[in-house]
């Protein structure tokens, strides 16, 4: 066991997989010699060689397309898109190609590509370095969508993603790369070394894709969330003093409906929280699923807390970010209802 932050855990996952499986290759902008703008691939090219850890041209569509070709030719490419905000030039290759190759070729040409990409705000990134576009990808049939909330899960889920026979879009909430963030930007930063999930095995292990995790057990209300917001929700629950059950969804597609709905049927109340914009967001899918499965157990209308339906504004970041106060208000509202 070692103490790792999220970047080190991701680096360790790729290092382990490069060592175990000669089919694994890493490609992306700045990932090779330099080791990535967030340092996630630091030292990997030096250790595994420049044919396994490839610097690429600045062309997200080209990175994803060539990764698909490599996957078809038997490799297991891990493509880094430097910011999720930059993924859109590659979206045709993800939606029309990567997601559907297995289907359209009746299983003859699958492309097991992992796309890693940092997402989310709270880093003064403005509208081009802060987005959380996970819902765009969960709407596409044929790809798995994952977002870890801590170093242990990050490494275990990334190894699962690389070993998966299907394509995975792996979102990394960059605000929590270095430590769990509770939504209060004025408090001193907390490192992962103080957190239980900052303890990460050095070698190979997996966290299964498709399984949510109950991160706090409780009886009064279920909070469904993922990524950075897991930690903000924990703080909001402490603030309100409610006995909430907090579930880290971890995999947005395929969704672990049973874990979510078992909890909501137990508590009878539900708050859905994500950083991405509200309208048409992934929370709508969660709310719909809970309503279908748990309607007769619900004591109150389900509440949604999300980013406002505006682009992520640079100067008003903390007015935009769905912080503790908004989550606390939603928790109070579901508790007061009926």
């Amino acid at each position, binding site marked *: 066991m070692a103490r790792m932050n999220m970047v080190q855990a991701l680096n360790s996952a790729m290092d382990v997989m490069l060592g175990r499986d000669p089919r694994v290759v890493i490609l992306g902008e700045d990932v090779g010699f330099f080791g990535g703008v967030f340092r996630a691939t630091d030292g990997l090219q030096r250790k595994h060689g420049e044919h396994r850890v490839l610097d690429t041209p600045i062309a997200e569509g080209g990175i994803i397309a*060539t990764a698909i070709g*490599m996957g*078809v030719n038997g490799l297991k490419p891990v493509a880094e898109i430097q910011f999720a905000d930059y993924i859109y030039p590659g979206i045709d290759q993800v939606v029309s190609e990567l997601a559907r190759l297995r*289907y359209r070729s009746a299983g*003859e040409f699958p492309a097991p590509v992992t796309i890693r990409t940092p997402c989310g705000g709270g880093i003064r990134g403005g509208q081009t370095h802060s987005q959380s576009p996970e819902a765009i990808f969960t709407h596409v049939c044929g790809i798995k969508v994952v977002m870890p909330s801590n170093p242990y899960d990050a490494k275990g889920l990334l190894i699962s993603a690389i070993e998966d026979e299907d394509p995975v879009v792996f979102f990394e909430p960059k605000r929590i790369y270095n430590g769990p963030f509770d939504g209060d930007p004025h408090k001193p930063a907390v490192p992962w070394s103080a957190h239980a999930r900052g303890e990460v095995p050095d070698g190979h292990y997996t966290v299964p894709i498709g399984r949510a995790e109950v991160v706090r057990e409780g009886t009064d209300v279920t909070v469904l969330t993922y990524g950075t917001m897991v930690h903000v929700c924990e703080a909001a629950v402490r603030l309100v003093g409610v006995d909430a059950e907090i579930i880290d969804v971890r995999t947005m597609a395929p969704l672990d409906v049973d874990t979510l709905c078992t909890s909501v049927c137990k508590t009878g109340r539900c708050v859905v929280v994500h950083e991405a914009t509200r309208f048409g967001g992934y929370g709508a899918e969660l709310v719909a699923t809970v309503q279908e499965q748990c309607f007769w157990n619900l004591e109150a209308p389900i509440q949604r807390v999300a980013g406002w339906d505006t682009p992520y504004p640079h100067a008003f970041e903390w007015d935009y970010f769905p912080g503790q106060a908004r989550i606390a208000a939603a928790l109070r509202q579901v508790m007061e209802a009926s």
Partner: protein
Amino acid sequence: MTPRSRLHVPSPPARPGQEPDFSYVQISPAGAVPRPDVTATAREIEDLSVEMVRVLGEDHRAVGPWNPHLEPAELQVGLRHMVLTRLFDDRMQRIQRQGRISFYIKSTGEEAVAVAAGMALQPGDMLFPSYRQQGLHVVRGRPLVDLMCQCLSNTRDMCKGRQMPIMYHWGKGNIFSISGNLATQFPQAVGWAMAAAIKGEDRLAASWIGEGSSAEADFHYAMTFAAVYHAPVILNLVNNQWAISTFQGFAGGERNTFAQRGPGYGIPGLRVDGNDFLAVYAVTQWAAQRARQSVGPTLIELVTYRASAHSTSDDPSRYRPKDEYRAWPLGDPITRLKQHLIALGEWSEQRHAQLEKELEAHVTASWKEAESYGTLTGGPALDPLTMFEDVFKDMPPNLVRQREELRRLRESQADAAHATPSAAKEG
């Protein structure tokens, strides 16, 4: 008058009712273009992106340094593949017109593009075609029945009813799945080739796009990545003058040739007579040698003409002269190879007629067999529940639930259908 800016809106030289005019197509005499060493740099051979590699002359003889000196037996095989491709296309077009398949795309007039290139490559080389290179399947020995079953979406459909007609794939034959989205396969082929080099394999990738879709960003991605990594890939750009109703000027073909884009990336661009079987074979062979020696990629512009409609959903008489194909200066690929073999004393009109008769019978027999595996209106049919397979390797819970829902729905519909006659009797 003060000068003001104006847009130049490209316009083809002739519209319906006007005289066809192909004076814009620059043509070099057969044998006139030198054949450089495969190690030549893009800059050293920039002329080849403007000139046109041609081997078959007006007298039907093969001339010049690009003559691949193929044995007559090989030429006869090439002719056979092209004739079979054309007869297959003609039959499928008629079948579509009879309403027995939903859609079709012919490759008429462009058979040499796929057949000659396919023959110049090794069976292990991976092909990433667009939708008009069915000749590649013919070259690699794909039974026509397989292709027909795909067009029928029947029980032997390789795509299990998931793709429109002609979107074939063939894992064993190393022919990639055809996408309905244009140009996406171009950079994928580059990635495949990069993987071959990473693995240390002696295989190359070849891909085909049209001049129209070369305007997509995927073309630029493919060229950039291929150039940067010296990927062992052959990038074929089929300039058949028309992208549905969009003439090649709208893809940027008015001031430069498409091959000229190659040198801009540091990639040799070869412009070739796409209806000259020997020339297409020769440039493909040259590019393949280059790729295998790790010298790098090649861009090949195949100058040809889309003799038929874009697809069965298209009516070209609305946007180009009806008889334009007859004025096409590079002739017909089948006629030219046939005349060459006759000039060599290795073929005759009689043998050609015999070949056509034999292949017609083969197409007829293939169609008969294909129909026995199911048609759009009758016979054995695919199970709709298979639509949930292959979305993922292992079916996730939501798809298991949805498959079950459809199964129950179909069962209740079947029950209702059975119940109706007896209910009517009682009433």
